[in-house]
């Protein structure tokens, strides 16, 4: 929803008023969007600085380099972008290479108007622009080739990085065309828009599992992550952190012992004007081991601030108070009259659902290296939100944003953690204090204790059923911290339905689901206790991982309470009527019926209702439209679990997942994303729990915080539905569908209903007795 609000504005100011230029500079053919129609002006600076955006460059040996303003954190997005370009450019896959953009606005996402990677948005939002870039390149190359061969342009065909004229059996390679310097054209926005892109039946590369371009470098140690940065004269920084997550102040610093550590340089108390960090100190030394020892040797006293007593229980208590009071919510959905319909319903059901704090813990701990040169600050890191990080860096240093250059690297995991910018602050302020480049590497303990956690959420759901057990009213209250509101970027907030003001819809997406329920109210509450004490972040799939936890659990509870089959009941509600028909936007085309199809697919593949299960085993279903209502990826899951009736321990035997991705650009890449996100969902469902005590995150390493390991990974059966509809994201939705499917399977297995994530053996055992 936010994305679309922003889309219209950004598109208008962006691609639609820009030109697409194809021309030669220094022996390289560059293709890119520009604000000027003057090719010579744009090319004057050469390919390295092609203004404003050299997205594609073909060099004289025919290699095609696609520069991507996106963060590559395992989703192979750069490779996917190259595949989209190559499809229309008709370049050979073996000629394709990838590069990452700096934070220069010229590489901004053409739709979002910023550099941000998240929300499973990249593929869907860039498909058209990348396709047109490739097509414009191909047409320009063909024209030049026809001239070179002295044949009519219309009789030429491009394929595998060559233009051929079949009648005369002549051909020139892209390398030869580039060398000729003849390929040049200024495309107006209208001309670009008029290009007829390929129909799916004509695709040669899209739909093929071509090998991902980044993978070889990740098997031989050559892929470069932010942590792998080395600069001449570089020093190291290690954090010394306060005993609370947020709100502490340094009141005293004694570095007498640290001074005895060889190579110690200085302890820097961070004066962070953005308030991103609080009470942080950086110990700077010539070596990393020296910086660690020095940080340990610092004696720091703190004012622990106002949140030093906060616990999980306090956050839940505040959430319940807010919900019961009922006045602070922002309306996200208001269809019909849910209160009235509940008042006249044949049956009313209520339930509460909880999700714990969760830690991102990407394998590469947070880090950044900073260096100043002639007034310009260079940051070396891997980050999902270069635009915001640029702003924060500038504010921290008190310089203009134009003085910040961020050098993008591979991300050793993102999952939303690297949408944040905290890691650049200690590097910048330490580098400024000591006048030398500084690399700051968080220890794993630093990384976990200062994570921008997935918020602890409390949800209350109330449903009214008619005499046939059909839900006719649904009230859904969602209470938690609001990560996006913390960013302070108004465009990322959404106006409440009742005009009460802007709210953070990224915490409630998914609750506007595609079931046909005539009376539906969703309220979104900000829990200020959580907001202040546990600065929260976007964690892979964000709200749909808790809203569907509640919604898909309650659907099952309704089915169980009214003797309906949970699959048949869902299919009946996914009738695609009214607003759930999907409308004419490519991403929502087909509407709820596509989710019904995905559900049927998963159900059929799993053997649900047909195969014989062992004792204390069960199959549970869930169906989701993650991520946002405007960008649904129709996803269904059947979980097959076994429960140990003695201990309540749950074993997931199999996850069967069906996902309608519209168009799978690289089917094996889609499969890899579904495999990983499904296991992430299972990990959050069963293995991962963070807690707050005395204002601090209690888990500090992989002994206390325990993501799923190989031994716990269930078998996964994946069906990718690629039906020619518009491509949508696939890196997150499976996270959201797995937890409710597992909980519903546990209920089928042993009759235990669990309503809190993660699901523990104790909770299952207790629910069995209840």
């Amino acid at each position, binding site marked *: 929803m936010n994305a679309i609000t922003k889309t219209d504005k950004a598109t208008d100011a962006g691609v639609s008023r820009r030109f697409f230029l194809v021309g030669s500079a220094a022996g390289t053919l560059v293709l890119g969007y520009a604000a000027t129609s003057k090719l010579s002006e744009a090319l004057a600076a050469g390919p390295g600085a092609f203004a404003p955006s050299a997205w594609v460059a073909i060099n004289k040996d025919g290699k095609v380099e696609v520069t991507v303003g996106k963060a590559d954190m*395992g989703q192979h997005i750069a490779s996917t972008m190259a595949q989209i370009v190559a499809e229309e450019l008709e370049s050979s896959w073996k000629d394709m290479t990838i590069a990452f953009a700096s934070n220069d606005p010229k590489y901004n996402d053409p739709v979002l108007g910023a550099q941000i990677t998240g929300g499973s948005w990249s593929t869907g939002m860039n498909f058209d622009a990348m396709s047109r870039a490739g097509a414009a390149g191909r047409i320009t190359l063909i024209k030049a080739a026809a001239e070179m061969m002295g044949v009519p342009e219309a009789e030429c065909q491009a394929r595998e990085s060559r233009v051929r004229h079949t009648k005369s059996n002549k051909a020139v390679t892209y390398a030869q065309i580039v060398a000729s310097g003849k390929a040049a054209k200024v495309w107006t926005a209208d001309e670009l828009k008029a290009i007829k892109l390929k129909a799916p039946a004509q695709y040669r590369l899209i739909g093929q599992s071509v090998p991902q371009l980044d993978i070889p470098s990740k*098997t031989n140690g050559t892929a470069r992550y932010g*942590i792998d940065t080395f600069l001449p004269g570089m020093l190291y920084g290690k954090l010394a952190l306060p005993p609370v997550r947020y709100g502490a102040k340094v009141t005293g610093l004694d570095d007498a012992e640290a001074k005895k550590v060889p190579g110690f340089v200085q302890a820097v108390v961070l004066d962070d004007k953005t308030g991103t960090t609080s009470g942080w100190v950086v110990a700077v030394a010539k070596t990393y081991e020296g910086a660690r020892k020095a940080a340990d040797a610092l004696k720091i006293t703190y004012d622990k601030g106002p949140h030093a007593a906060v616990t999980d229980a306090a956050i839940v208590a505040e959430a319940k108070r807010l919900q019961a009071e009922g006045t602070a919510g922002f309306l996200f959905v208001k269809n019909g009259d849910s209160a009235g319909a509940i008042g006249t319903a044949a049956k009313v059901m209520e339930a509460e659902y909880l999700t714990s704090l969760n830690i991102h813990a990407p*394998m590469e701990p947070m880090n950044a290296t900073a260096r100043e040169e002639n007034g310009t600050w260079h940051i070396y890191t891997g980050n999902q939100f270069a635009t915001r990080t640029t702003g924060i860096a500038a504010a921290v240093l008190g310089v203009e944003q134009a003085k910040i250059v961020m050098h993008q690297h591979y991300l050793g995991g993102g*999952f939303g953690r690297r949408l944040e910018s905290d890691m650049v602050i200690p590097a910048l302020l330490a580098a400024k204090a000591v006048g030398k480049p500084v690399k700051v590497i968080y220890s794993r303990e630093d990384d976990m204790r200062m994570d921008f956690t997935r918020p602890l959420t409390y949800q209350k759901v109330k449903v009214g059923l008619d005499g046939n057990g059909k839900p006719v009213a649904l009230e859904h209250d969602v209470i938690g911290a609001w990560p996006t509101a913390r960013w302070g970027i108004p465009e990322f907030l959404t106006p409440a339905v009742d005009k009460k003001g802007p709210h953070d819809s990224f915490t409630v997406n998914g609750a506007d689901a595609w079931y046909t329920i005539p009376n539906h109210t969703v309220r979104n509450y900000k829990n200020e206790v959580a907001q202040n004490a546990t600065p929260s972040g976007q964690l892979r799939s964000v709200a749909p991982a808790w809203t569907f936890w509640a919604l898909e659990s309650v659907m099952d509870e309704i089915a169980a309470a009214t003797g309906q089959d949970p699959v048949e009941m869902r299919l009946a509600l996914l009738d695609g009527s009214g607003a759930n028909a999907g409308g004419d936007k490519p991403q929502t085309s087909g509407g709820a019926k596509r989710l019904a199809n995905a559900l049927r697919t998963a159900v059929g593949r799993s053997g649900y209702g047909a195969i014989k299960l062992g004792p204390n085993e069960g199959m549970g279903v869930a169906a989701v439209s993650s991520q946002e209502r405007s960008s649904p990826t129709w996803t269904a899951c059947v979980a097959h679990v076994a429960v140990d009736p003695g201990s309540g321990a749950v074993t997931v035997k199999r996850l069967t997942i069906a996902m309608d991705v519209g168009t799978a650009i690289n089917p094996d890449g889609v499969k*890899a994303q579904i495999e990983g996100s499904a296991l992430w969902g299972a990990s959050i469902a069963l293995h991962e729990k963070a807690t707050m005590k005395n204002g601090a995150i209690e888990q500090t390493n992989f*002994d206390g915080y325990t993501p*799923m*390991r*190989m031994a716990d990974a269930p078998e996964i059966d994946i069906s990718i539905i690629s039906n020619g509809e518009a491509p949508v994201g696939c890196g997150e939705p499976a996270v959201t569908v797995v937890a409710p499917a597992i909980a519903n399977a546990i209920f089928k297995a042993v009759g235990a209903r669990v309503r809190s994530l993660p699901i523990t053996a104790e909770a299952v055992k207790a629910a069995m007795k209840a």
Partner: protein
Amino acid sequence: MINLTINGKEQKVDVAGDTPLLWVIREHLQMTGTKFGCGAGLCGSCTVHINGEAVRSCQTAVSEAVGKKVTTIEGLDSKGQHPLQRAFVAEQVPQCGYCQSGQIMQAAALLAKNNDPSKAEIVEHMNGNLCRCMTYARIQRAILRAAADMRGV
């Protein structure tokens, strides 16, 4: 001054003997294929071989490596074409890729002793290596593929 043999090459480093081998390899020698993940022997990202055994370099003092053969991902195969490296490409295993050097080094120690491991043996040997992208199924497939390759089947 400490003398080390890493990937067959003699290296001299001026560090304290209790410095973790990980930091010597990564930050002093700038061989960055070996990764820092937890600093506590809990994740396996920093796995290297010492005399052919997979060890966690974050838990190994540099002094313990003196006089022994240290092998990192960069030295597993001179051309980066160890059967496991080929198999990890063939199975398209890495996502973010950060843990993969450690996964490959851990798996290489297994296959050096047992080129026909069962799935259970693979899980037991690999369970200490975390992958946050959860590429576990592909890691298993790649190890089985590499093992078959090494057996010549």
